[in-house]
């Protein structure tokens, strides 16, 4: 057998040294990775291992002007099971089925499903959640969560709006003030394995959520309640399709109440009210010409009232619509306030100017009728307003001419949106100026052939009678922390002059006379000075013989502090605004004025200078 020779041994040493050198090099490489690049890789690995669970922030509440909570949060629980941590599946199934009032199979399916975490039930009452937690079952997780809760159910539903499952605003103020209300969600960071299963013993780091701010609104719980009661009452009496009432402060644009009955239940917003089934709806939507065809088609496709899919969503959207701002209508005679203001401001008419109404007025080749077939005869401009005489206002409109009329229309802010703090405000639908001839101008002058939103009318009239400055109608007043500490106040433009003080004062006294001795006399309240204007407009198509009755009023007439607008859609029987809408506003004012601390004047006669 051969012996080893020196070169054999030398080479073996060479190999060893080579290996030692290689290992040394790798050791260096390792040191580089584990010291110099350690942080880099550790961070990447950390990102990989961490799972983020967010903790919902408590949503800010919505308060009325006196601090009454209109939208609140309720603690609810989400009950989940973690498959890998369950020790006694049978007991877990028993307890959960019993406490959550779920069928056993349902619970069993969830419990036996091999997944990292399985939700058994959401929105469980806190007491039930606490009870389940007290069983101390391994693998059962009870997470607390907030859910929006509206203490007054349907009150101001279309103004407040509601939130979805993720606690995000869907409509109304809930959407508009999402940023203020939502707060900042917190985070729970946990470590997980590659399958996403949380590791039990690694601890967790927590970032606390920041609760949203409370929104203080200009809404007044009591006024809103009166308004809704009054609206429901008149809707029932007149078998109307819907009734809108808007009460606001004409000086600063704060809205005290806005209702569009029927209101829906904010705590159950996805249940369709019977009034909004497509069948019932066809009659109402005639106000919007374009809706007629669509609703006919709908009627056929949804026979049987079991709505699904798109039809249901359409119906829900109709139910959620805030008619005061999302829909436009032909204002009719209430718009004569605008024509009168423009005419007086331009100097084309004076209160004592005399007119003659034979029951119609011929403009170009058209004979435009007055609502009083026999005519009002000889009358002054004051009487013209009191009588709501169409020929008088046609005359004023024609005296102004298209250019001037449009420039006032623009100046009064009617061409722009009011800027109200609710989503989806509809724009004015007006003729193009170049298409307006004398006939169109005549109809515009008494509020027909174009459409505006109720809130636009209320805001514009407010601005015309408040001394002549354009206000921005709004709900949002301020935001405050949960403890009431003010964190922000909203500012709205309110100093744009659109009418001179004198004309504004003149308008107030003219409109007071409408209530005192004219078509608005049903709004009269003994001891209060009230101004206002009625309207009765026929909806499109005219052949349907459907009407919108409305009344806009304000008080006190010499220093308006509250303005009310009532719109009744498709009343049955008597449909004159002065007969059915004016008393609604009177009823409102009878309650509101004392409530707002507005004193009765001692004797009205002595104060009226006219």
């Amino acid at each position, binding site marked *: *057998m*051969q*012996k*080893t*020779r020196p*070169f*054999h*041994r030398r*080479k*073996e*040493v060479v*190999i*060893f040294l080579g*290996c*030692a050198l*290689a*290992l040394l090099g*790798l*050791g260096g*490489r*390792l*040191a580089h*990775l*584990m*010291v110099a*690049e*350690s*942080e*880099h*890789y*550790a961070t*990447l*690995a*950390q990102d*990989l*291992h961490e799972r983020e669970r967010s903790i919902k922030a408590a949503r800010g509440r919505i308060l009325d002007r006196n601090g009454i909570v209109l939208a609140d949060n309720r603690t609810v629980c989400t009950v989940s099971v973690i498959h890998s941590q369950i020790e006694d599946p049978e007991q877990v199934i028993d307890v959960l089925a019993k406490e959550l009032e779920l069928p056993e199979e349902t619970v069993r399916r969830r419990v036996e499903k091999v997944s990292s975490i399985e939700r058994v039930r959401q929105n469980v009452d806190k007491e039930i959640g606490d009870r389940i937690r007290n069983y101390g079952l391994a693998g059962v997780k009870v997470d607390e969560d907030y859910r929006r809760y509206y203490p007054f159910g349907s009150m101001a539903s279309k103004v407040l709006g509601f939130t979805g499952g993720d606690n995000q605003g869907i409509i109304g103020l809930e959407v508009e003030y999402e940023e203020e209300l939502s707060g900042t969600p917190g985070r729970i960071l946990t*470590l997980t*394995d*590659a*399958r996403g299963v949380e*590791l039990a013993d690694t601890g967790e780091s927590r970032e606390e959520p920041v609760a949203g701010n409370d929104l203080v609104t200009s809404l007044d719980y009591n006024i809103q309640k009166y308004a809704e009661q009054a609206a429901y009452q008149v809707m029932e009496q007149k078998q109307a399709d819907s009734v809108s009432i808007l009460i606001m402060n004409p000086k600063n644009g704060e809205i005290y109440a806005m209702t569009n009955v029927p209101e829906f239940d904010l705590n159950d917003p996805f249940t369709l009210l019977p009034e909004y089934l497509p069948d019932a709806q066809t009659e109402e939507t005639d106000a919007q010409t374009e809706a007629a065809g669509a609703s006919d088609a709908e009627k056929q496709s949804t026979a049987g009232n079991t709505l699904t899919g798109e039809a249901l969503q359409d119906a829900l959207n109709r139910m959620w619509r805030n008619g005061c701002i999302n829909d436009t209508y032909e204002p009719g005679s209430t718009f004569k306030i605008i024509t009168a203001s423009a005419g007086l401001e331009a100097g084309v008419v004076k209160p004592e100017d005399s007119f003659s109404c034979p029951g119609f007025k011929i403009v170009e080749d058209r004979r435009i009728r007055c609502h009083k077939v026999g005519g009002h005869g000889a009358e002054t401009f004051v009487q013209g307003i009191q009588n709501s005489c169409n020929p008088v206002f046609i005359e004023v409109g024609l005296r102004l001419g298209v250019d001037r009329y449009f420039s006032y229309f623009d100046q009064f802010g009617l061409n722009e949106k009011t800027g109200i703090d609710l989503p989806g405000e509809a724009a004015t639908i007006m003729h193009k100026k170049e298409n307006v001839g004398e006939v169109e101008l005549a109809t515009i002058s008494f509020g027909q052939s174009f459409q505006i939103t109720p809130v636009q009318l209320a805001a514009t009239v407010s601005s015309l009678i408040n001394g002549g400055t354009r206000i921005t109608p709004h709900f949002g007043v301020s935001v405050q922390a949960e403890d009431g500490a003010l964190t922000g106040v909203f500012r709205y433009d309110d100093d744009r002059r659109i009418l001179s003080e004198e004309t504004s004062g003149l308008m107030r006294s003219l409109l007071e006379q409408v209530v005192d001795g004219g078509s608005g006399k049903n709004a009269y309240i003994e001891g209060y000075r009230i101004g206002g204007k009625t309207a009765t407009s026929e909806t499109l198509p005219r052949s349907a013989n459907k009407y919108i009755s409305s009344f806009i009023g304000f008080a006190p007439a010499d220093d308006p502090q509250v303005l009310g607008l009532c719109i009744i859609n498709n009343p049955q029987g008597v449909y004159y605004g002065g007969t059915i809408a004016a008393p609604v506003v009177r009823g409102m004012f009878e309650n509101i004025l004392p409530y707002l601390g507005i004193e009765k004047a001692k004797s009205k006669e002595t104060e009226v200078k006219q």
Partner: protein
Amino acid sequence: MRAKPGKADGVLLAAVVFLMVFGMVVLYSMSAYNGRVRFGDSAYYFKKQLFALALGLAAMYGVARIDYHVLLKFSVPAYLVSLALSGAVLLFGDAYNGSRRWLSIGPLSFQPAEYAKPAVILLLAGVVSRMNRRKSGRMILAVMLMILPIVGLVGTNNLSTAVIILGIAVLMIFISNPKYLPFLWILLAGSGFLGIFLSLESYRLERLAIWRNPELYEKGFQTVQGLYAIGSGGLFGRGLGNSLQKLGFVPEAQNDMIFSVICEELGLFGALLLMLLFLLLIWRFMVIATHAPDLFGSLIAAGIMGHIAIQVILNIAVVTNTIPNTGITLPFISYGGTSVLFLLSEMGLALSVSRYSRI
């Protein structure tokens, strides 16, 4: 005219026992998660490995007791058996993860490629030690040709092991020849061949691209996860059992990538300590090889040194992304029954040689 056998190398034995214990502890830590998730038993891999370890210890003890000279006459038959087994695995083997590498005998499965390594060591030690020195140049070629069949058979579905076998062979031939220059040529020729081999198929070039930017490729996932594990270890590691990367992030943490998780749990110090332990092992093989009474024993020890060194160096190089990814296990630590069985048999062989050391 043989000397009486003395005592076996105590340092080697101690190092092996330490590595075994360390390996089992670490293996349990690395494999507990995968065992629990896949088989509902944290100790699943540990138990299987323990069984192989017991077999391996018995084999080590048996082999260490015999006179290694006896094996000279078995060197060729043992090699033929390895050829037969490697051939059989191609025909009857069980596939796992897409590679046909296992032969099943009843409940036991066996990787012929692991057996081929000691078989080749034994064969080359036998052949080279009987070689005519005058014709050594031509003999180099003949010896290379002898091991080509096993390299080819093993390489069919286990390229990494074939490369290891080839590497062991080259090292043993290197020792047998006094010259250095020819081996430089072999090295250059080898690299040239590798370059051509890689560029022939685009998927092999892709492997290079993955190596350079592992995070950009889906196939670089394993490498990237290994680097995350190594990097998050820092100086002292998360502590034994506290790795997060082994929780399914590093795929098959108990296999090829086990070193990365060792880095994560034991830190740079633990990893360097393990590398030092391997170096100690390799050093003992060198001592045994240089003190062997004859060329046969010396080459056996040197072959074993080559085997361990190549696997340790390549494994760590792969895990640290120093070279492109290829599946090589870490001796004594990675999970694998056949591997540990034959590794311990080789240790027995080295111990047997050490008993006959010249002082």
